[in-house]
């Protein structure tokens, strides 16, 4: 039988490509696993609160198993590369924040410059590939504390995801979770129909 994919490969497969943001997420996920002494989540043993919706979150989902679908990935739209990973079993949580840097490395600056172009020549593609290889090695080999600040924190665990009944929307006829339906003159209706009514 084939073994499970290593974490990095899992993250790349899930995300679709290698990029600096994903690699930072891989470092966070691997650190959190080691620090908390936990494995990949199966059924909400872990909770991740992410304060960004950038590439690194895909590493959190694929390596830690805290996923949008399971409800143990909580997204806060703060635009910050900050991740709180908590273990219900260990009753522990760690908050990990990417360090702010005034000056980016020349390879990062050039990489972003190339990434912002709508079309790259073959030579530029090759240059971007070389830059990514360099960033990759630097990111994976840098001491964790050089890239991130982290601290153990008290954490109030959210309730596990609830399975709710599905009712029929009185307007469109499609199924909707009962807790998400709204009372109206037509009866219980889904949010999409409510918004359409409100214009």
């Amino acid at each position, binding site marked *: 039988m084939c073994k499970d994919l*290593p974490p*990095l490969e899992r993250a790349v497969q899930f995300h679709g490509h*290698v990029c600096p943001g994903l690699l930072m997420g891989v470092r966070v996920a691997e650190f959190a696993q080691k620090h908390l002494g936990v494995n990949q989540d199966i059924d909400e043993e872990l909770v991740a609160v992410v304060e960004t919706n950038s590439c690194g979150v895909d590493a959190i989902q694929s390596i830690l198993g805290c996923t949008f679908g399971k409800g143990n990935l909580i997204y806060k739209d703060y635009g910050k590369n900050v991740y709180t990973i908590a273990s219900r079993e260990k009753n522990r949580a760690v908050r990990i924040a990417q360090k702010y840097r005034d000056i980016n490395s020349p390879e990062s600056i050039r990489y972003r410059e190339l990434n912002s172009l709508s079309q790259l020549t073959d030579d530029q593609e*090759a240059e971007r*590939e070389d830059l990514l*290889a360099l960033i*990759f090695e630097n990111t*994976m080999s840098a001491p964790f504390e050089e890239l991130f600040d982290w601290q153990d924190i008290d954490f109030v665990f959210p309730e596990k995801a609830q399975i709710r009944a599905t009712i029929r929307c009185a307007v469109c006829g499609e199924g909707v979770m009962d807790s998400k339906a709204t009372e109206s003159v037509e009866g219980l209706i889904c949010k999409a129909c409510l918004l359409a009514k409100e214009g």
Partner: protein
Amino acid sequence: MCESNVYIDRAGHEELLMESVDRIIPAEDGSIFMESIFGERKVVKARIKEMELVHHRIILEEIDKQEAKEHDQEIWLEPDTDHGHFHAGEEVVLKLSKGYNMKPDHDAAYSAIEAFAVNEGNVNPVHIHDHHGSKEINLGQEADGLLQIYVHEHEIRELYAKVVMEIGHHHHHGLKPLGLPLEIVPIDYSHARMGESYEIQVLQNGQPLAGAEVKVTYASTRSKDYPNRLTTSEDGRAKIFLSARGNYLFSVTAQNIISTFTLVKSF
């Protein structure tokens, strides 16, 4: 009207290649894809020489085949599997390619080639056969263990290609050099993973070769030439960080020999 007629310049003589072309996409391998408004499609080995947009004319220039072979050609082996190893009882098939920088030259000709499989010191000749225009080695379903397979071609230069294949599991013991005149040997055979370093040693007639240039590439590279060049240390060693998915190819040249080693990633 935005479409153009495409002409190709063959030794100073222009020939109409396609009429009413509305789409041209240059590819990395030096070929050009074109499509007309009538849905006709063509791929040609050429470069764009001139675009006369007012006259709706695009002139291509044929690429000299010799130009595409400006580098020394080498041979390499890759397994016909996408996950780096074969399971016990699985048919073990390897592909032999000739080209440069893991870009096969499909028109390449082979002269006298021979292949061998080495398992725990036992050397067995294996057959290389043609399969839909390419070269393959089929070790059948009986192979098992940590096998080293190598191919030798007597050309203008001596070409060697070596690969280590894991068939079944739990074969992570050390590997002995095969004794090729020029050979790349993995220092510590184990599952090589992206995001980790990998070290090799270059041996010439069994002795470490110091100061040799080892070129390293991978299948997905967009680079026309090898993206990495390492220099071996006093004891013939060189190390690279594996930043790409898929298999890696190491290549070294000394005197009249080009020798390659394919690192097959396990995932």
